[in-house]
Each structure stands twice: as C-alpha cells, then as structure tokens.
C-alpha cells in the first residue's frame, strides 16, 4: 500500500531525501551539545580554564547555528516534498478517475471520490511531511541520546535499559486500548451528521408536524453516544503525560542519588551528571514524540487505504487492442442482451433482441425501473453487457475505440449538468471548433436560440455552477444543443424534454425530423 503511494513522489524525491539528511545532522549536533557541555564544566569551569571555555564555546555556537540552518532547511524541503507529493497524488487520482467507466463512478459515488481527492490527500500530505521530519528525528534522537549517555557513563546509563522499555510498553498499551475507541468515535460522528443533515433538509416537515422535541431527542442520543466513547478514549490516551512525567522524575532522582555517590566516590564529575540529566530528558521526550508520530501515522493509514483503493481500482471497461476507428452508419442491433448492475442481483435486461436501422426514430416507453435508461446506456458503452452482443454499424461496440464510439453515439443524459462558464463554452463541449454559426444552428434545432438571444449577454451569458440560473426546461434544451454539436450518427434522448412544455417539445421533434434525417434517434419518455 505504502509503495503504491510512494510512486507519486517522483520529481520531489530529491527534496524528500535531503530533508531527513538535514534532520539527521540537526539531531546529531543537538545531542552532542550536552556531551560537550560536560567537558566545558569539568575541564573548563571547575579548573577555571578560561581558554578552554572560549574555544569550546565557539565550537558549540557554530554547531548550534549549523543545527539551526539544517533544521530550518529540513522544514523547507520537507514542505516542498510533501506539497509536491500531494500534488502528484491528486493528479494520479484524478487522471485515473478519468478512465473510470460509469459503473466505476457508481461504485465509488462522486461525493466519496471528492472526499478522497481532498481530505484524504490532505491527511496523507501531513503524514508524509511528518515522516520525512519527525519520524526521522525522534528515533534518531532516542538512539543518539542513549549512545551518548552510555559514552558519558555506561554504568549510570543502564537506567535507560529499564525506563525505555517501561515507557514503550506503557505507551503501546495506551494506544492499543485507545485506538479502537477512536475508530468508534468516527462512526458515531456519522450518526450525528445524519441527524443534523436530515433535520436541516426536512426542517419544513419538522415545523409542520411540530416535532422539535423528537428531533432534540435524536440529537441528544447521537451526541451522548459520541461523548460516552470519545471521553473514555481521550482519558486513556491522556494518561500518557502523567506516566511520562512519573518515569522522567523517577529517572532524575535515580541519577541524582547514584550520581552524587559516584561523584563523591570520585568515579564521576559534576558536569557529567548535568549532561546525563539532559540526556534523560531528551530520551523520554523523543519516546513521547515517537508515540505521537506513530499515532498520527496510523490515523492517516485509513486515508491511505481509501486513496489506494481508488488508485488500484481497475476500470471495468477495457479498450480493445486493435480498435475500429470509424463508425460506418447508425444501425443498432441488440442480440440476446442480458444486463445486471454491480451489487444488484436483479437482472435489469433479459434476452433483449432489437434492430434499429440507420435514420429511424424510435420511442422507448415503460415504467420507472423497467430498464429504459439501462437499455440505451449500453449503446455508447457506458456499461458493458453481461451476455449477448450490442452492435452499432454492424460491429460489436466493444470493438470500437471508446472515444470514436461515444463521438458517434451521443446521449443526452437524464441527470444532466451544465458547467460553470458561458453558454457558448458549454455548447462547445460538443465540438470545440464549432463556429458561432454552428452554435446558433444547433441551438435553433433544440429550440434554445430564442431564449438565449433574449438573455442580456446572449451566448456569452455565464452559467452558474450546476446551471442554477436557467430553468429546468432551458437547461434541458441547452444540453440537447450541446449534444447536437457533436453531429453524431446516433442520438439518444433519455427523458430529456420532461421539463419542456408540450408545444416546444413538438417543435424540437419536427426540427429533428426535418434537419437530421440520417441520424438515428432514440427517445425515452416517462409519459406518453
């Protein structure tokens, strides 16, 4: 999983590697300072050797400045690396999604893909930055400090052989108990969100039936459920700080008592004791930091999993190896076609046989859920059949280059959208090179020209996100015009004029019959 993610580091590898290197330099110098300090006290201050103090002081100051530069550099490079990594990760995800078939989009649902691209990538970015800095720093600090402590006084340093494992065990017990609780917290948050969301959306219902008490009760249950487990989890996790303090103070007292005895006994010097105390602090600090890093990283694992799930998801739609690059005509044939949606046991289409000749206009009617949309979606290969063959122009649709097929089999979807941009820009989705005259012609066929011309900015009118500034019927006519600009061999309208009045609807049909005689036209209608 991690390896899959790391493939997105690419050109930021250099920054990602420089950063831990600088961290190592910084950490090394930082752990050297207390060691040198012991020397300064024992060989400089105690005997009163001013020259030694000055020389060592200069060396240590230079060290501190190098360490500062290295630390700042590490921050800079790690941020560059992680921001770049996140950029690549988003790109990889987004590009991968562009290859998804309809079925794959349904499988994940757009809103879930959006979360993965935004929140989850953000989490990973933070985790990555931490990995190249803190995750390097804390274990190094731990190792260096223990090593230095041993070199100062090996016998005294044995205290760490006891304290480090004790702390490590205590921390891992805390995490082991706490983490499952936090998982539950997230689930219970979903419950709260649901109550609030449904309340907001249904506020008219709540007010009409005077149900604010019922709603308040629901919310209290949801928030209590969070409180219950969240507070427990946090309390357990927070035991960490008193335990850590306890161990630290214990170590200090141990060092003070035995250190004093050894100094009096002449086997140790005061400066060494001071540096040992400093190492004790940094050993325990780095252990604590390590547990934080570990905790953070495991939290981000959930995000990593969700991202990798998309990245490794293989599109169900495969392009043929030697695709046909042209659609000869608008013939459509269904031969013993079977189809069922994924995660759905019900067969939506069974043994469909159908032949439509190029240029024909065919209406399809039936109840909701009878399979009308499903049927036509098989023609431009928005979904693949489970059995039988769908052919266009005499060839199995699976033999065409997908792009060629979709350019020639054009469908106006039931749930259609316009994108933010001008009307002209939206129409040019159909054909980027269309001239203004062609735009107007298509709009005229779709009976959209009149209302577009009546808008203050005409074809340059800006469409808001989701097309909220045009009416339902106008939106439908624009999406039809957009599709006509592709000049397809087969045109499919999936209940695309439901919001258009009957009179205009009739005009559209008439225009199609008069102007597009060779185009095969499939029309789905909810009502007759």
């Amino acid at each position, binding site marked *: 999983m991690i390896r899959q993610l790391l493939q997105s580091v690419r050109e930021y590898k250099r920054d990602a590697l420089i950063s831990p290197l600088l961290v190592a330099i910084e950490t090394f110098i930082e752990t050297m300072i207390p060691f040198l300090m012991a020397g300064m006290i024992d060989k400089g201050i105690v005997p009163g050797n001013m020259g030694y103090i000055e020389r060592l002081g200069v060396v240590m100051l230079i060290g501190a400045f190098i360490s500062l530069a290295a630390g700042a550099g590490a921050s800079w490079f790690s941020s560059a690396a992680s921001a770049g990594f996140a950029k690549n990760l988003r790109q990889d995800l987004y590009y991968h999604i562009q290859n998804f*078939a309809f079925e794959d989009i349904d499988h994940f649902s757009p809103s879930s893909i959006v979360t993965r691209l935004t929140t989850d990538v953000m989490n990973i970015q933070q985790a990555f930055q931490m990995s190249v800095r803190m995750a390097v720093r804390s274990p190094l600090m731990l190792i260096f400090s223990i090593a230095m402590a041993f070199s100062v006084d090996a016998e005294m340093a044995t205290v760490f052989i006891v304290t480090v494992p004790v702390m490590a065990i205590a921390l891992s017990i805390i995490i082991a108990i706490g983490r499952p609780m936090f998982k539950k917290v997230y689930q219970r948050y979903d419950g709260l969100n649901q109550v609030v969301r449904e309340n*907001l959306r249904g506020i008219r219902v709540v007010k009409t039936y005077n149900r*604010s008490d019922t709603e308040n009760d629901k*919310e209290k249950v949801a*928030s209590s459920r969070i409180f219950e487990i969240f*507070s427990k989890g946090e309390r357990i996790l927070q035991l960490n700080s008193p335990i850590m303090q306890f161990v630290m103070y214990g170590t200090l007292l141990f060092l003070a008592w035995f250190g004093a005895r050894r100094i009096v006994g002449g086997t140790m010097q005061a400066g060494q004791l001071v540096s040992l105390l400093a190492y004790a602090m940094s050993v325990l600090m780095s252990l604590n930091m390590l547990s934080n890093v570990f905790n953070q990283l495991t939290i981000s694992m959930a995000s990593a999993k969700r991202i990798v799930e998309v990245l490794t998801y293989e599109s169900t739609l495969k392009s043929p190896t030697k695709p046909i690059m042209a659609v000869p005509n608008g013939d459509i044939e269904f031969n013993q076609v079977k189809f069922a949606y994924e995660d759905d046991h019900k067969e939506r289409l069974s043994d469909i046989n159908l032949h439509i000749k190029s240029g024909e206009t065919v209406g399809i009617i039936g109840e909701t859920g009878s399979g009308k949309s499903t049927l036509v979606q098989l023609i431009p290969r928005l979904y693949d059949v489970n059995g039988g063959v769908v052919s266009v122009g005499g060839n199995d649709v699976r033999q065409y280059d997908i792009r060629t097929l979709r350019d020639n089999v054009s469908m106006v979807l039931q749930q259609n959208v316009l994108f933010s941009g001008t009307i002209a820009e939206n129409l040019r989705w159909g054909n980027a090179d269309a001239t203004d005259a062609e735009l107007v012609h298509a709009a005229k066929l779709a009976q959209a020209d009149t209302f577009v011309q009546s808008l203050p900015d005409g074809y340059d009118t800006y469409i808001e996100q989701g097309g909220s500034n045009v009416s339902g*019927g106008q939106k439908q006519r624009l999406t039809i015009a957009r599709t006509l600009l592709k000049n397809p061999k087969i045109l499919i309208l999936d209940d695309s004029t439901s*919001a258009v009045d009957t*009179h205009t609807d009739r005009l559209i049909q008439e225009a199609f019959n008069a102007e597009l005689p060779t185009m095969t036209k499939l029309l789905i209608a909810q009502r007759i």
Partner: protein
Amino acid sequence: MQRARVAGRGKIEGSAWKILWRLLRYIFQESHFALFVAFFSIIISSAAAVIGTMFIQQLIDDYITPLTKAANPNFAPLLNMIILMGAVYLLGVLGTLLYTQVMIMTGQRLQKRVRDDMFTHMQKLPLRYFDSNDYGDIMSRFTNDADTLRQMIEQSLPMLVNSVFNVAFTLTAMIILSPLLTVISLVVFALSIFVVRSLTAKSSKYFRLQQKATGNINGYIEEMLNGQKVVKVFSHEEQAKAGFDKRNDALREDASRANGLSTMLFPIMGNVGNILYVLIAVVGGYIAVNHPALLTLGAIAAFLQLSRSFSQPIAAITMQLNVIIMGLAGAQRIFQLFDEPVEQDSGTVSLVSVAVAEDGTLTETANRTDHWGWKRVDEHGNVTLTRVRGHIQFKDVNFSYDGKNQILHHITIEANPGEKMALVGETGAGKTTITNMLNRFYDISSGQITYDGIDINQIQKASLRLSMGMVLQDTNLFTASVRDNIRYGRLNATDAEVEEAAKLANADGFIRNLPNGYDTVIDGSGSDLSQGQRQLLSIARAAVADPPVMIMDEATSSIDTRTEKMVQTGMDNLMKNRTTFVIAHRLSTIHNSDDIMVLEDGKIIEEGDHDQLIAKQGKYYELYTGKAELG
C-alpha cells in the same frame, strides 16, 4: 484543520477577548468546580517542575560539593532530600494527572453541551434562517467548530496556563540564581520572538493563499466529478485534466511555502534554546572562574536546565496561541448561532381535539376524535371552543423577503371549507410563497390572513401548523423504519392507524413489497426508494396526521405515468372533505378544482374554475394548450 486555521486567522480580531470571556462564562456555568480543580492542579504541576530544577543546584552546591570535601561522607541528609523531592515530584505527577483528566471531561462535556444547545436553539429558529444559510456551513458548526473548540479547551488552554506559570516560576528561579544570566536569556528570547513573529506573519499570508487555492481546486473537483458522466459522454477527459492541473499546481506552490515557513518555527525555537544554552555556559563559566562568589557551579548547572524549561513554554505559547485563535473562531461561529433570534409566537388560540354533542356543543377531549376545535381563553380564564372548519381568507396580502423586492402583491383569496384551490404559474410566480404565508413560515408584510375568521397571528404557531398538513415536492424522510416515518405525522398513532393511512395514500402496496414491509429501515437520503414512492410515504405521513387543511405540491415530472397515477389517487383521497391548496405543475390534474388561481410575478392574473378560464382564452388557456411553459 488547515482550512479552519486560516479561516480563523482572518476572521476574528479585536473581539477575541470578548469571545474568550463569553466562552469562559459559558463553560463556567456548568463546570466551575472542575475549572478550579484544573487551575490549581496546573499550578502544582508546573511548580513541581521548577522546584525540581532548582533541586539540581542544591544537589551540587549543598550536598555533593561538601560531601566530596568531607572525610567521612554522610549520605543521610542527601537521602532525606531525595525523598522530599520524590514527594514533590509525586505531587506534580498527581497534579498533571488531575488536570489532564479534568480538562478532558470539561472539554467533552462542553462539546456535547454546545452541540445540544445549538441543536435545540436551531429548532426554534424561523425558516428564514434555514433558507438563507448554507447547510454545509451549519453542519460544520456541529462538527469542525465544536471539535476545534474542544481541542482548545482540552489541550491549548491548560497548556497555555501551564506555560505561563512555567515561565513565571522559571523566571523567578532564574533571577534568584543569577540576574545577569537572566538578562542575557531575555535578550536572546526577545530576538527570537521577533524572528518568530515575522515568520508567522509571512506564513499566514501563504496560508490564506493556500486556503484560497484549496477552495478553488475543491470547487473544481466537486463540479467536474458530479458531472463526470457528462465528461465521459463527451470524451472531455483531456480538457478536464488540463483544468485540474492548473489549479493543482497553484495549490502545491502555496501549500509548500505556507507549511515550509510555519514548520520552520520548531527548529528555530529549538536551536535558539541551544544557542542560549551555550551562551549561558560561556558567560556563566567566565563569571564563575573570575568571580566565584557571584555564581556557584550548581547555579550554572541549574540555570542551564532552567534555560531549557524556559525556551519550551515560550515556544509552546506561540504555538498554542494559533490553536486558541482557531478555537475562538469556531466559538464565534457557534455563538453566532446562539444569537440568532428565535421564532416569535404571540398566538393564544390553540388547536384541540373536541367531542361534538348532539346539540352541537363542543367539549375538549384528551383523546383524539375526528373533530378539531379552536380553543380561546380570555383574560378571565373563560374558555371558548369553536369548530375548525377550514375557511381560509387572504385579504390584500403583500409580502417581501428582504423589504426591497416585493414578492406578493395584493393577494386576495378565499377558500371555503372543503374546497380545492389550485395555484398555477411559472417558477418564481409566488405559488410556494403563498403557502409559506399560510403556515407562517414567513410573516406577511401587510394585509391579513384569517383561518375560520381568526387572524392567523393569534393562533399558536404549533397549532396553526398542526392544522395544516403538507406534502412537498422534495419529500424529506428520515433514517428510520417506514412505519416510524409515517408515524412522524402523529407520534401516538397505532400500527393499525399507520397502515390505514398508508392504504389511503396508496402506499400500502409497495410497502408490503419491501424486504421487511413496514419495518424496512430506509435511508434518509432515500436512495433506496424511488421519487414516487417517497412521495407516497409523505402523503401517508400527512394522512396519519389527518389535519383539517392540506397544502400539496404536486408530483414531480421525474416519475412515470403509472406511479404518477398512484400518487394522484393518494392525493385525491387525502383531499376529500378538506380545504386543500395545490401547487400545480401540470394542468391535467386540476380540472376538478373549485378554484384556480393563475399567478404571475406575485400577482393573481386570472381566477376561476377550469371552464371559466378556458373560455377566457388568457394565460391559463395558453398554458393548457402548451403555448407557455410551466416551471
């Protein structure tokens, strides 16, 4: 996290203290004892830490040095000292244990209370609030804002108090040990704080840019992915990628700078600590060598340790301030919700179930009957009951949402008991607005609306709304069983009554075909039911409430002919013997209305029954013959 932080920085300034003060008062109301305990535990914990450091000086100067000079070292006083220190430390550990646990409970309780209070308050807000605020924005107060607030209470606030005391104690200890070294330390810190401040200023500029870039790319992703199927149908993948790349790279650049500058803070503060450490050793060494009376070895050792525990809290304070600002921004948004004025209700007339005696006199009943009555209590406590008939009148009603653009002009309507009144017109003509006036989701600007002759302002809102069922186009269901969704109309309805209502609404058939029948749990977003089925359930919900007046929004265009017929039959059943207002989307269903109002731009332009309006050859005729479009 990132987003909230930046938003917080921009939003609150100046009023931060006010919000903090209000927040503290809010917490104090419930947890004053806990706060006192936490406060004193923090002081104990931080005092123990500083006393512990001072101990190093005593250890070296008062015990070790004399002991090394003694011929027969006596370790007993040292042991006593160690035991004493052990006790002090233990006290400190207990202090830490106590304040961390207490603050977690305080934060968690606060979070729960904030959520409950917000929700309860929200239920009392007028509809205007819900219509003019983004749902996502309201929801984020329940999650993000409540969360950052909790984090602030649990972590930042105690850490800040702890750090402040640490600095104060440490500073005192440092001055006692050596005033000169203290001055040096302060100068170095003043310099480093200057560096930190300029860094923070710069990084917050980039955080704002990052925030903007994030919003930009998220908006793009949201729009494109929701239209992903269209992208595919038009083979528009390459263009979609190009637009994405542009925004993606912009975000990378800003994120890289913002994080780079802000994370630099830690190594800078840490290494300033190191520099100070060395400076103290050099200067301290110089003094100790040349003027041994001024500074002892133990004092230097203790001072060195203190300088470390001095730099840490200062770095912590800088960091915590950001988190606190962020938490306060969340608190501000939460308080904003608390400050929203609640819906006013000065009505006194209430709706009650009544029993009708043979001579026509009414008596109030606790149990439900088939009859409703208006209950009026005058100042002497005399109760008058009158029958609810469903006679509704609009008298010259004007309305404007914002006081500027008038939405309804001089609306005068009369619906007699049991009549079916249809409202016809394009989107935005004011059909829904009229129904919003009726149940007082919004209040009229001028004119009068009466219900059985009573001004609706005199009727308690809850009673008014209970007396009017509603079936809306976007039918809102709740995550619960089908049965509970229907029962939402009347909580004490029996199972039999629920099923009866479902039959009336024509919903019984499809419900029985669901996997668990009436006990099937449906998802509130209703992805598992069709639009028509959802509408049938909302009709059943209204049927179980059985109100004297109904407001109905007709079936949407997205259901098929057969289901539409079922919905229509359900609605017709529900309309029987009730005054009904129907918002019509298709004219085929309103032939049999007693009265049809044709609305345009908030004015009634035609009125009459179907035949009269057709004969008139006006707007209705145009709509009916398909020459005009209905919204």
